[in-house]
């Protein structure tokens, strides 16, 4: 049981990075539909960086850069060239698959045995990890999960208590107000998507070097979209995203547990599909949406 909870928290970590990134971007009116590709590039960059340098830290840096590059391409096309966000995301996602698998080949050739790196170690925090139940669940995780403990309150604080947060929230609701206040809508959106790309890159790296130490092109398998969905379901609020990510992390942990324990009465495909079914059910039943009014709409001035 403690195992499952600990696992759930671990599995919700990348989802939370991704969904908080998405919350911020969508608050400025930008759906980051390239999130699946950003995750994938992050996973790939993290693995390649870690494998070649032998340092997981450098791996994460490379993952961040890969995420940023992907996000910046997306943002350039959607923010400055004003092209359709869904359509552009689809293209970037396909390209990300191509680039990852092609450059895997360029860098590593055709390896005979699967390449692996030693994944991020869990760091038990002295004393705290000794607390029954809470200790092993919360204080025996890897560094990225601990970092997440800081990111959640920070993300909330910035969004609601600072001038930057006010600007971000206003941009998604009414970019004209932001423009008239003398701020550049495009620049705000571009920068926020760039930051979202960095966080998405970390999320992706979590899947490759966070706990299994491997990379395959289907490693993300729709988790980017789950993070995207969590942003919706969490009502565009970092705390809502936290709840959403925990629910999905739990579903995934149970799925992994059921798979490894043979599944029993229910087929293990049911548990694999569980997060996706959950998304559909929640999307349908979710009531009062707090959608940013200009979500997905490019900001165009007459000229």
């Amino acid at each position, binding site marked *: 049981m403690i195992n499952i909870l600990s696992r759930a928290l671990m599995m919700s970590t990348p989802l939370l990075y991704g969904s908080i990134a998405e919350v911020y971007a969508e608050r400025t009116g930008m759906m980051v539909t390239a999130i699946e590709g950003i995750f994938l590039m992050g996973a790939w960059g993290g693995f390649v960086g870690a494998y070649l340098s032998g340092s997981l830290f450098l791996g994460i840096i490379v993952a961040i850069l890969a995420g940023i590059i992907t996000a910046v*391409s997306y943002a350039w*096309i959607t923010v400055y*060239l*004003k*092209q*359709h966000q*869904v*359509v*552009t995301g*689809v*293209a*970037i*996602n*396909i*390209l*990300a*698959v*191509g*680039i990852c*698998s*092609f*450059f895997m*080949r*360029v860098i590593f050739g055709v390896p005979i045995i699967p390449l692996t790196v030693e994944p991020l170690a869990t760091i038990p925090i002295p004393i705290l990890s000794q607390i029954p139940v809470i200790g092993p669940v919360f204080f025996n995780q890897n560094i990225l999960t601990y970092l997440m403990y800081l990111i959640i309150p920070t993300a909330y604080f910035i969004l609601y208590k600072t001038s930057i947060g006010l600007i971000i929230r206003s941009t998604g609701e009414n970019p004209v107000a932001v423009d008239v206040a003398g701020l550049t809508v495009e620049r705000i959106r571009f920068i926020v998507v760039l930051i979202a790309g960095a966080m998405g890159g970390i999320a992706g790296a979590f899947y490759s070097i966070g706990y299994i130490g491997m990379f395959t*092109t289907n490693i993300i*398998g*729709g988790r980017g*979209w789950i993070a*995207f*969905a969590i942003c*919706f379901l969490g009502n565009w609020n970092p705390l809502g995203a936290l709840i959403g990510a925990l629910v999905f992390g739990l579903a995934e942990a149970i799925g992994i547990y059921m798979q490894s324990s043979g599944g029993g009465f229910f*087929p293990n*495909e*049911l548990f*694999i*599909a569980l997060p*996706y*079914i959950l*998304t*559909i059910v929640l*999307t*349908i*039943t*979710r009531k009062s949406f707090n959608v940013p009014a200009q979500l997905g709409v490019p900001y165009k001035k007459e*000229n």
Partner: protein
Amino acid sequence: MNEKLRDLIITDFLAIVLGLTVSALILLFLDKNPVESFGILFSSIISDKYTFAEIFVKATPLIFTALAFAFAFKANLFNIGAQGQFYIGSLIAVSSSLFLQGKMPSGIALVIVFLLTVIGGGIWGSFIGFAKAKFKANEFLVSMMSTYVALAIMNYLLRTVLIETKAEYPQTNPLDTSMWLPTFIPGTRLHIGFLIAVIVAIAVWILLYKTTLGYRIRVVGRNSEAARLAGISSKRLYIIAFLISGSLAAMAGFTEVNGVQHMLLQGFNPDIGSAGIGIAILANANPIGIIFASILFGALKVGGTIMGQMSGIPSSIIELMQGFVMVFVILSYFVRSQLEIRREKRKLRKVVEE
């Protein structure tokens, strides 16, 4: 209008050329000569009949999934779930074929299989439309997620009830040759599924532009508020649009199972859904344009595979080419709108200065 069409053709052509050029240059990372590699690509796909016909074989399912995206797109709906609808179609096609084969003349059996596939895909798709109409659910997310659910269902069935008799791999028994879609060019795999795809594309065009149902779908897609005040219920049309969209994607299941693979196995055509979206974008969601864009993507697929076999280039070159072509096509949308704005401005200055 003429200038616009000219812009469209020129920029689309340039986008394709640029996309392929960038992909070719990337081959330098593998120390391959891009000119030589692409030379092999082009010469080999036209060198023999079989390979050339393969282009159209590969294009067939893409026409369907692209139509599925484009049709919903006309109603301003995002059906990102064509892949899942294709899986559902494949499941129905294979199971009904296995059930019906030998029980009736193959012509009748194939028609029934086709109809069942279309209906099944339509029902699966219309759930998404229903969720949108009834609960205002985000169809983008629901359709996206429905693909993963369909995949799980397919994997489960392939592992259990549909598994081959010797129960070794998660795949079905092969179909009787009587359930194969006939080929129409001897010595190739080109089956009548391609003709069906072309006919369906034309039918979709007629539906959209020549019937009042299609008109209403486009009206709702462009401006649902004006549609409402004109007595057009968007809710009903959302369901209809997804029903048709789902059945279009499912048709790909029929042509792939009965026309090409003659069985169903795990990991079946995993990327035709997203390629379909790219094709629909390339074709500006025009059903007739989709036929040609699908043939292009079919050619990239065949060419990419040959490159992989002949010169040790990884088959991921296909995704690279597709991805780069799509990105450049999106950029060409931007270039076209800039060209148009500039043209208008020039005209205006002329008028003012006169």
